[in-house]
């Protein structure tokens, strides 16, 4: 048999367009995953408008705002790092990715203190203060912890993704002519940012 024959459309040869398409499809599933939660939020907000408003005053708008700025900036640095690598500037690309990682870390640290304060007040489901709340506020805090928690998980995953890309740029596996992984990490990071852009006003700002 002719072992060396490879089809022109082989699934075993790397195809950057496939990889990009796959990533986009995956992002759709992520959006729908959060979409279910946004739907639940919408329903309960419309059923308990006053309670949601009251509960939202218990959040720290400042911390939320700082985190929003941090994430937006990190989206910029990740985009810049892709451009840098496309131009062949490996050093710059890696530095920008490190900056992105730093931002992810800063986001998580702030989130940690924010959640910590809520725990201290006993707002977490099952704690004394939570149990004393009216139903609407309970739903609010339940959704708050669920949605920002799931988002936080995505920040961690996105961070790991970026870290892998840094390692691969370093070892030369990701470079100017083979940049898909880097671009995909960027896409994923933009998604993490995008979801936060919706979470922030929904929980902190709407009055």
């Amino acid at each position: 048999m002719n072992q060396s024959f490879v089809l022109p459309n082989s699934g075993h040869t790397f195809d950057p367009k496939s990889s990009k398409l796959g990533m986009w499809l995956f992002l759709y599933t992520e959006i729908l995953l959060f979409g279910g939660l946004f739907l639940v939020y919408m329903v309960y907000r419309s059923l308990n408008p006053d309670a949601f408003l009251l509960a939202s005053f218990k959040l720290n708008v400042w911390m939320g705002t700082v985190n929003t700025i941090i994430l937006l900036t990190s989206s910029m640095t990740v985009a810049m790092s892709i451009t840098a690598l496309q131009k062949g500037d490996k050093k710059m690309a890696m530095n920008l990715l490190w900056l992105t990682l730093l931002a992810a870390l800063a986001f998580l640290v702030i989130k940690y203190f924010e959640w910590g304060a809520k725990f201290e007040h006993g707002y977490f489901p099952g704690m004394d203060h939570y149990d004393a709340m009216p139903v609407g506020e309970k739903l609010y805090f339940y959704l708050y912890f669920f949605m920002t928690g799931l988002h936080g998980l995505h920040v961690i995953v996105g961070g790991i993704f970026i870290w892998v890309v840094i390692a691969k740029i370093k070892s030369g596996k990701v470079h100017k002519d083979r940049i898909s992984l880097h671009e995909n990490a960027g896409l994923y990071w933009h998604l993490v940012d995008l979801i936060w852009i919706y979470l922030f006003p929904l929980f902190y700002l709407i009055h």
Partner: protein
Amino acid sequence: MTAAALPENNFFNAKKGIMSWLFTLDHKRIGLLYLYAILSFFLVGVVLGFLMRLELLNPGQDIMKPHTYNQVFTLHGVIMIFLFIIPSIPAIFGNFFLPLHLGTDDVAFPKLNLLSFWLYVLGALFALATLVFGDGPADTGWTFYAPYSVKTGTNVTMSVLAAFILGFSSILTGLNFIVTIHRLRTPGMGFNQMPLFAWSLYATSWIQLLATPVVGITLLMIIAERVFGIGLFDPSIGGDPILYQHLFWIYSHPAVYIMALPAMGLVSEIIPTFAQRTIFGYKAIAYSSMAIAFVGYFVWGHHMFTSGMSGTAGFIFSILTFFVAIPTSVKVFNWVATLYKGSINIEIPLLYMMAFIFNFLIGGLTGLANAALAADVHLHDTYFVVGHFHYVMFGGTGFAMFGALHYWFPKIWGRMYNKARANVAFALLFFGFNMLYFPMLILGIMGMPRRYYDYLPEFHGLNQIATVGSWILVSGLILMLANLLIGLKKGKIASANPWNGITLEWQTSSPPPLHNFDKLPELNEGGPYNYPDAKKA
């Protein structure tokens, strides 16, 4: 022409050892891994169904307690839905034949493919682990309706986690197929040159991709609700159980097209081969798959007519559900028209396809009865529904899958099963199936409710008929599987193209070589089913 031996180079002997199977990246081997796993779980599900039918042979308690019965139908439902029927055709035959149909050597992401197989195994382990951990398998029904699913002591968390993981596996398969279809078609093959099976997988994959995440997050909410003891869905603390039902069916209705569309793809594939003539209305069939997938997103409310929804909403959901019947009938008419004046060759795969059309017709028409608002108020949660969905899922998709197994058996293993025995098995299956489920439709109209271990004495006769039917059905199943197993070891060597099929998989040897094609496959002039010397109608 019968070759004396299997081809020397085939994907079975390309690599050796158990590891070369467990960690294979070859789409054919992954398809077979799925086949063995899925059939095993199917058999577990069948045993559970068989036991339920035994319990229902006579009124009153026979072999299991009411609580046990609740757990058995739940586990049966979970296994049959999440472990058998949803993955079945795409994961087995999609994996094996999509790349062959497109004239390529694998799916777009072979490693992701292996990952989704292992996720399937992990999910299956969780589902089975409910048997031994905690208070046993869930007793909620496969729908996990809140608030009961939040309150029961049985092992709902683990079952739900299983469904979540299986959903992930299903998403990855869908994603892989979409990219494969977009990127890996052989040079010159446009979308409208693809076999219809590929089209149906394409539509299915979009549903897997866009509907599964919604049920994923809903199931996570159930878990969170159980673990933290607070309620999104429990009305006693402000939650809304109807909201759960909406979220659940937003996925689970489209999911029934994950079950049905690939089966329709198989029918469109197999009928032209045994009529030896081109499919009637290629584009109508291809696009009606997409239409079904699309409309399917907007009809979920028909599961909730009696749960409390406004008259207007009920009316709209009812009308939209009727719309699904249109693209579905388009397909049925096209299949029949394909057979008309074809040179029909009645072989076992064709018999299964005819059974599909017959059973699916009953399943589809009873579906319309459920979709009609007034009728459904009476029929909801009766045995009519149980009859209806078994007709669609088992009589339809299940039979199509068995047919595909007989159709592609010589391609996969290079051997042929005993046809006489296969005929007997088919007859038993078809007869047993209808004897088992048709009485359920009548019982439902008479008012027998589903999900009970017991029934009123006036339902006795028909229940006995159904249970006897289950015995015939199961003997048919055993005969079919035994026959295939024997064929696999001892069957006569088959030629590369025993049915005179015309799609690309028949251009390569049986079993195919590791990389599928030794030379670029040749596209068929004028469409994938264009038989050169077919009789002109």
